[in-house]
């Protein structure tokens, strides 16, 4: 049994219009996706803005109403009433956000920020709470004197670590990390990513790592899903996705990453242009009549791609 099993998850938003404000259409932010997260792994969810990746993350943590489908945590469907409470889901699943400044309450001290989940779920005495928060600060590599400071007194990387300290306070089993490093400088990004890996090794935490940065995802994730228009277009191991991408969308994303290889840049630009041409001109072969990705089909035991049979055979040649 996986830690998290997501089955046919849909999150649709109604669009209201007309005189009586009736529901006339729907935005299918997440439109039927399936994936599993194993205990102790980092699962990568990749897509561009508007792909539905953040909505998926929020649905998993419970910040978004699920239209249909199931999210099973240790076999219990947490979309059902009361289920969440029974398995202490809110305590065991936490979230880290991209913008650490706006996701931390600017009027609260670091002590109160980190202690908040503790106060919600564990009823510690004031001394014990302080000891626990100091422990957490040490884990994330911040000074004990940070305790009584406010978020704006820290740098971006430090704030992100405060966010992580808050997320790990209740010893969660899963952390949803939504673009945790995209607002950070390269050198700070390295610190935060290392730290995320360290607490994973130390506490066996799983991550759902949501990002648009394929370089960072490759560094962090063993299993990856590529999301496009609310659906998954390709799922596989890191090797499947990076060595043998099959869907044009995956190829296009990979080709778009600029690389620090000056000698090959001409070549890469050519390659990118060619993939872009295929994407523009032959998109009907990769997407259905409505312009949406096809259902996933299995290619190897680990590798799935959203292509019709004929196209798939073509790709595998």
């Amino acid at each position, binding site marked *: 049994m996986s830690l998290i099993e997501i089955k046919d998850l849909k999150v649709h938003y109604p669009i209201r219009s007309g005189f009586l404000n009736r529901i006339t259409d729907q935005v299918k932010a997440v439109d039927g996706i399936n994936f599993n997260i194993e205990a102790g792994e980092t699962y990568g969810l990749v897509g*561009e803005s508007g792909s539905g990746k953040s909505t998926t993350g929020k649905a998993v943590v419970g910040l978004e109403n699920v239209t249909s489908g199931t999210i099973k945590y240790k076999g219990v469907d947490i979309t059902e009433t009361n289920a969440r409470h029974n398995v202490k889901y809110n305590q065991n699943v936490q979230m880290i956000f991209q913008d650490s400044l706006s996701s931390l309450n600017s009027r609260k001290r670091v002590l109160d920020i980190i202690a908040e989940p503790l106060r919600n779920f564990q009823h510690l005495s004031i001394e014990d709470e302080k000891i626990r928060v100091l422990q957490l600060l040490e884990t994330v590599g911040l000074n004990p004197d940070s305790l009584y400071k406010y978020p704006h007194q820290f740098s971006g*990387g430090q704030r992100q670590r405060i966010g992580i300290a808050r997320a790990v306070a209740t010893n969660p089993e899963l952390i949803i990390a939504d673009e945790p490093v995209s607002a950070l400088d390269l050198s700070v990004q390295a610190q935060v*990513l290392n730290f995320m890996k360290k607490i994973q*090794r130390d506490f066996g935490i799983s991550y759902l790592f949501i990002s*648009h940065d394929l*370089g*960072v995802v490759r560094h*962090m994730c063993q299993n990856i899903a590529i999301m496009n228009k609310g659906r998954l277009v390709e799922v596989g191991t890191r090797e499947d996705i990076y060595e043998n991408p099959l869907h044009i969308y995956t190829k296009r994303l990979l080709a*778009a990453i600029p690389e620090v290889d000056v000698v090959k840049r001409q070549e890469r630009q050519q390659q990118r242009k060619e993939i*872009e041409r295929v994407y523009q001109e032959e998109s009907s072969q990769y997407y259905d009549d409505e312009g949406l990705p096809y259902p996933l089909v299995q290619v190897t035991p680990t590798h799935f791609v959203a292509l019709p049979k004929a196209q798939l055979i073509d790709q595998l040649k």
Partner: protein
Amino acid sequence: MAEENTLLKLNDVSTSFKIDDAYYDAISHVNLTVKKDKILAIVGESGCGKSTLATTIMGLHDLNTTKIAGQITFENENLLDLNEEKMNDIRGAKIGMIFQDPLSALNPLKRISDQIREVLDYHTTMSVTEKNDRVLELLNQVGIVNPQRTARQFPHELSGGMRQRVIIAIAIACKPDIIIADEPTTALDVTIQAQILDVLRSIQTENHAGIILITHDLGVVAETADEVAVMYAGEIIEHGTTLQVFDNPQHPYTRSLLRSMPQGDSDVANDDLYVIEGSVPSLEKMPQTGDRFAARIPWIPAEYHEERPTMHVVEPGHTVRCTCYQHFYFKTLEDMNI
């Protein structure tokens, strides 16, 4: 004096900001040359002064709270000596600027056509119809599929990529000699980023402009720039052709930055990224003498740093600040802690 292709020359330029009655250098003693037909990248992390460099060239600082020293030579004039009126003749016409956040950089209450036409109003003598035609032509040039429609729209009706194209259209409207692009793709998706960089490259070849590309993204630099200047704490610490800097980086900071990038072949479970110790000092705490990067490589003995670091020639066209680069080595993994 100057080479044939030189468009703009920065000579010993320093910009300092007033904080509580004292002035602090945001950029110190910068020397740079922008050449025709070339893309010069200024790369560094937030707070290194790269954006201040752009706004200094454009003359966008409030001189009541900012001190600027040195010379910025453009068409045989020092831009720092020009009054506001003369600078307005240059801004938008001869030097165009592209900004990072394409949503806030456009006036939310004005139609796209009006915002592009505004540049033409001040720098050309075109008739109204000519201007309207030019607006459509520009939108077409930056790759907007339906220029008529976009021209009538408001900024919030466009996607991020489209808005950035509009910003570029504004910057190139008067065919400037120099385009300064400050983090032009940071707010965009990678695929859109690739498209925007394509647009920039095509404009450069069509207009023969010199481009200053300011970015923190080493990949963007490696794929786009002809020349690179790496900045740390307000100073240029390494400068050379893109190939020189990326294939043979010399300064400890450049080498550390490149090393801290995620690599493809790492082991997911165990491999950590290289971390530069410490953090960038704030403006007020910036050391004013000695090697500003020294504090972040404490295992390199002090005697290897210069007291007043200068640029040293590694090979023709490739320079690096401070002698410490000759003695730098990476701290071994065992004694590194996060």
